[in-house]
């Protein structure tokens, strides 16, 4: 079954280049994570609220910019408002695969000092979609 996962991910590449539904994007990350993986909103929430000790001595969390409430606005370090993350209040969220991937790439590096895994991305999106 293993060789199937990359093949499945390739099938989903067309999805990654245009507007998509929240579920399509979640399914694409789930496929990348491999067969047998099932996204968990609970794990996604734990991941979102975790504190990370960075190499530079700082403690970083996703909440530093996004706040504890993903239905509310956040603020970047440079004083710019971040629109709510939860698709239930901001339907535009998680509809552009390239944008989703861009922000995972940047923010995982800034908060975790590393790239996020497909499992972590799928879990976090499942958490976002569970917020009503």
């Amino acid at each position, binding site marked *: 079954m293993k060789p199937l996962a990359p093949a499945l991910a390739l099938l989903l590449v067309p999805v990654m280049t245009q507007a998509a539904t929240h579920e399509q994007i979640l399914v694409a990350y789930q496929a990348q994570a491999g067969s047998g993986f099932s996204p968990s909103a609970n794990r996604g929430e734990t991941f979102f609220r975790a504190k990370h000790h960075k190499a530079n001595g700082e403690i970083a969390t996703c909440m530093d910019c996004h706040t504890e409430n993903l239905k509310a606005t956040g603020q970047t*370090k*440079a004083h*710019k408002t971040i629109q709510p993350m939860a698709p239930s209040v901001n339907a535009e969220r998680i509809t552009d695969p390239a944008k989703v991937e*861009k922000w995972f790439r*940047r923010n995982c590096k800034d908060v975790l000092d590393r790239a996020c895994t497909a499992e972590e991305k799928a879990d976090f999106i499942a958490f976002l979609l569970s917020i009503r």
Partner: protein
Amino acid sequence: MGITFNNILILLLALGVTAYGLNASRADDDVASFPPVDHKLTHDECSACHMVYPAGLLPARSWSRMMRELDNHFGDDASLAPQQAAEIKRYLVDNAADGRMANTRMRRIAAGIQPNDAPLRFTETAYFHYVHDEVPNSMWKRSKIASKANCIACHTRAETGSFSEKEIRIPKE
């Protein structure tokens, strides 16, 4: 000498020239000093994290360096797809302080930067210090200002490229 027709004529002429000069400098202050960023990709990508800084605030070599070092952008990863980064860099370089489109103010900014220097912060240029020399340190520390990069805290129309004196509103706290 006494009051003669000639003396009064010279006085009136001098007053006229002075008034014209004052008016001209005010008119210069009224116009948007920097063309606003009208390149959509540049506007959208930059404004996702911070106010959109006009390209005319820094010379081309600064923008080239900034776009080369996007994966460590003042401590954060602001990396972009290579094609997008190239397109944004082209816009910024074409409209830089030392570019073909540069106005007098931009040329003064560029002239104040050493040829071998490529600052990433406009707030570290000689021109910035020159035009902010009357702002005391305590004022920069007010919570609603917080950072010298936060132009819009005082320059209410900064995002349109306008830094006119009469549009300045300094937060009290």
